[in-house]
């Protein structure tokens, strides 16, 4: 079962957080294909979030093909998210690289920045918000 934690100060929209946390749960194997997602009522009673937000998140997940809504029964997980298993060759290569980065003196933040830059190049982020010229709220200026 998924326990949603909404962080109101994170600057990320609530429904996006629900989508992300659901995906994380699927990725981690907490939700397997065929499992029933909590009903909107259950989520809402636990998080005190507007029901429409939950429905929006579920619709987004459905749009991405991760879940499907069966009328009268609930929303069910459709497929799993490919996570590299613990002994995949990709993981071994990454372990190797991380060891080398450490040896050459890179700090944790340097590695994270490097990884994020490479990630951005190969997996560019889709525009998650509709607003065009607006940066998300919470900009410190």
């Amino acid at each position, binding site marked *: 079962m998924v326990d949603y934690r909404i962080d109101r100060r994170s600057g990320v929209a609530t429904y996006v957080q629900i989508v992300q946390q659901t995906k994380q749960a699927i990725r981690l194997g907490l939700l397997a294909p065929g499992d029933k997602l909590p*009903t*909107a*009522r259950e989520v809402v009673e636990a998080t005190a979030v507007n029901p*429409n937000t939950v429905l929006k998140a579920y619709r987004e997940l459905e749009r991405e093909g991760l879940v499907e809504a069966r009328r009268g029964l609930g*929303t069910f997980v459709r497929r799993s998210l490919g996570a590299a298993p613990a002994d995949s060759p990709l993981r071994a290569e990454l372990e190797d690289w991380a060891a080398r980065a450490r040896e050459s003196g890179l700090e944790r933040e340097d590695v994270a920045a490097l990884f994020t830059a490479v990630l951005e190049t190969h997996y560019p982020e889709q525009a998650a918000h509709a607003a065009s010229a607006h940066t998300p709220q919470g900009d410190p200026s």
Partner: protein
Amino acid sequence: MTAALTTPAAPAAARPAGVPRQWRWLARLHRPSLIGGGALVLLAAAALVWLGGPLTDASAAAWKAYNACGFTPRCSYDQSAILLYKDVYNYVTFAVLAVPFLVAAWAGGALVGRETESGTARLAWTQGVSPARWLASRLVLPAVLTVAGTGLLAALHRWAWATGRDRIDTTKSWYDAATFHANGIVPVGLALAGLAAGALAGLVLRRATAALAAAAVAVGVLWGAVHAALPYLWPSVTRVTTLDEGPLGSGLHVGEGVLTAGGGRAAAPCLTSQMQSCRDTLADMGATAFYRDLHPASHYWPLQLVATGILLAVAGLLTYAAFRVLRRTTGTARG
């Protein structure tokens, strides 16, 4: 867009409209008042039965002994019995006459005023009881109980008074103010008017203590007015007597004076032509006879009925006003 993954709320048309069950909760909410009021009525009733039974017998026997004494210098009779009868009579009569004030104060304070002041009236109105129904239930049940209680006490009072009337020398006359009212149905009408006045005061003032005071004062004013108007509520009987006799006749006094030669009426300067000074004055005025307007004993019930009728009409008006105020404040839809 509805927010439900499950089926949405049933449409309003399918909702069954049951009648709210108020009586039980009205009794529960006013339980202390019911018990207190009931105890008061029972106590007063018991006192009246005691008065009309054993106390009357004891007092009558004492009076008999007193009268049998004549001018015997040393004669014993039970004076305490006579005094006890007198005291209890006065207290109980006061109690019977106080009931309308208590009903009015309770209606203004606990029944309506407290609910409008604390907002529990609004609670009822938003919990399935329409304002009109709410007010109606709060008037009907107390009205029935008031009529029953006040009626019982008045009937017992009349019985107690009647048993002592020929046997006790100092019985109050039927037209003595307190006895007149306590023996009849005027207290019932007054209590109902007080109930309506309390409800209206509670709705208008929305403060329990203010409504309590206003209602009690209203009862006082009503009673004063009814009592002042009492002699004129029924055509009086005129008794004409000679100048020698002076004005005569016992009953509820309406007016008295002299009849003049011209057929008119004038105030009486003095009371009997047997006194020389008086005879002259009367002769100067051209007085032909004394007259006295009064109500004999046979007029008791007509007067009571008219007075009570007026009070019931006032009660009706006040009740109507209360519903009007309620409708205007809450904007209840009509037609």
